[in-house]
């Protein structure tokens, strides 16, 4: 069975074409375009306009890459939430058009769960704790008693958002994470920052403010270094607590911030110290992508989930633990 999945929750519009044969995940195509604001953060309307503009191009590109006829597609999946309203509606509209035009079923996928499912499919972990770290989302998710439950999350802003906001203030381009990672490698002096872990939750806004106060006093490389070490240690700690709490021995990374090599290293050390296994899919599947939507759509569809067109209204605040998990 072949599914075309459309991702459009925030800055990325992506299309993935994925084939499922048995339990095997075969990625035929995975293309995307990312909206980069000229200045400031993501403007939802501008991002949606960007998605509208690029969708037709990446649709053709993905079909070509997958080397299939558009009629070979059996299912249309799209990111139904959570995310920015205008972006979600753009992706949903495109999905509805394709579904009606091709007379194929449509299915709306929870974006956060898609990150987890693609990680499971590509890395071979079975029942992991997912540390999901992106611009808007920071969650520790694991499967328990029939649902993916959020064991820990940010109490204010996402980790990526924290990095981006800091980057913006010191003149780094969006997304600032990769730049901060590069600069941080030169840092040597650890500057004391707030360390904000509350049970299994984290908070980043205080750290951001503290870093901004340091900008005029300290070297940028030392601030970037301290910012990364503090935030990533907090993430490792809550991930470890969730693992201890749920008694799971696999940790999986997901989300754009997980491309950061230092974060990967920190989580790997945490896993090794507690004799757990560490999993991380390639960058292309860590960032927002269409393939994860297509794959999760396939899992949902094959387990018997159906959606009528009227049920495809987007859900900006769709929570991870609201999703009925019928495929596990």
């Amino acid at each position, binding site marked *: 069975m072949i599914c075309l999945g459309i991702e459009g929750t925030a800055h990325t519009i992506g299309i993935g074409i994925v084939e499922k044969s048995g339990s095997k995940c075969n990625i035929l195509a995975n293309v995307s375009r990312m909206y980069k604001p000229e200045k400031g953060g993501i403007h939802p309307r501008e991002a949606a306009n960007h998605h509208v503009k690029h969708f037709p191009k990446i649709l053709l590109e993905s079909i070509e890459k997958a080397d299939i006829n558009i009629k070979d597609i059996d299912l249309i999946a799209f990111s139904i939430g959570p995310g920015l309203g205008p972006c979600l509606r753009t992706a949903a509209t495109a999905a509805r058009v394709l579904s009606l035009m091709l007379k194929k079923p449509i299915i709306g996928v929870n974006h956060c769960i898609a990150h987890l499912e693609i990680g499971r499919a590509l890395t071979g972990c079975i029942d992991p704790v997912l540390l999901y770290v992106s611009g808007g989302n920071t969650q520790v998710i694991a499967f*328990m*008693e029939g*649902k993916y*439950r*959020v*064991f820990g999350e940010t109490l204010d802003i996402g980790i990526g958002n924290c990095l981006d906001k800091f980057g913006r203030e010191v003149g780094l381009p969006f997304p600032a994470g990769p730049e901060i990672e590069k600069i941080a490698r030169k840092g040597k002096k*650890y500057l*004391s920052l707030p*360390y904000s872990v*509350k*049970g299994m939750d984290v908070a980043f806004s205080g750290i951001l403010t503290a870093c901004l106060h340091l900008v005029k006093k300290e070297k940028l490389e030392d601030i970037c270094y301290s910012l990364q*070490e*503090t935030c990533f*240690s907090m993430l*490792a*700690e809550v991930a*470890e*607590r969730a*693992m*201890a*709490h*749920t*008694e799971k021995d696999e940790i999986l990374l997901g989300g754009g911030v997980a491309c950061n090599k230092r974060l990967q290293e*920190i*989580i790997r*050390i*945490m896993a*090794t*110290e*507690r004799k757990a296994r560490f999993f991380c899919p390639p960058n292309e599947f860590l960032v927002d992508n269409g393939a994860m939507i297509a794959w999760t759509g396939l899992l949902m569809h094959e387990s018997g989930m159906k959606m009528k067109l009227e049920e495809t209204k987007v859900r900006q605040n769709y929570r991870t*633990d609201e999703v009925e998990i019928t495929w596990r």
Partner: protein
Amino acid sequence: MEIIKRGAEAEIYLADWHGRKVIVKRRIKKGYRIKELDERIREQRTKREALLMMAARKAGVSVPIIYDVRIKDKEIVMQYLNGERIKDVIDLKSQQWQKKICREIGRSIANLHENGIIHGDITTSNMIWMHEKLYFIDFGLGIKSIENEDRGVDLHLLMEAFKAAHKNKNLFQWVLESYEENFDEAKEVIKKVEEIARRGRYMRRVA
């Protein structure tokens, strides 16, 4: 020193301290944190835990006596309680005893909350019955807070623990009754507990 428990954050040892049998709780180094940060976190938490235990005692809740706080080693040396874990004994006792204990649990939590102390891991495994007294142990996840959200999370955890580990459905009801009688803000906290339960987080796998 004989290790008796290995947690995500700390190790618990049984040791001898000037001829006394004691518990040593040591916060372990984390290789994923750089040294400066790791030292600071473990030091802060060791101090905080000791302070919370003292605050709990002041609030009228029995806790182990602290003999020593070794900041350099991130260790707390405390009284060894040679009693029974509530978790292990409550199901075996008479209804009358159960009610007495549950009311004592409710009163203790009310006193903690009223004095701005959140235990952070209230389960029947962290309560010990010794010399006709109820003791609370392991304030390692505790915080100082007077937010009803934090109090609610605290109480919700206990509710989950009761639901999962103990057969008698009345137990938690007795805890709540006594919590309400001993704490003016109890009603609002209990309302929070219901809201927290609906979120479906903080679920505990029962060993």
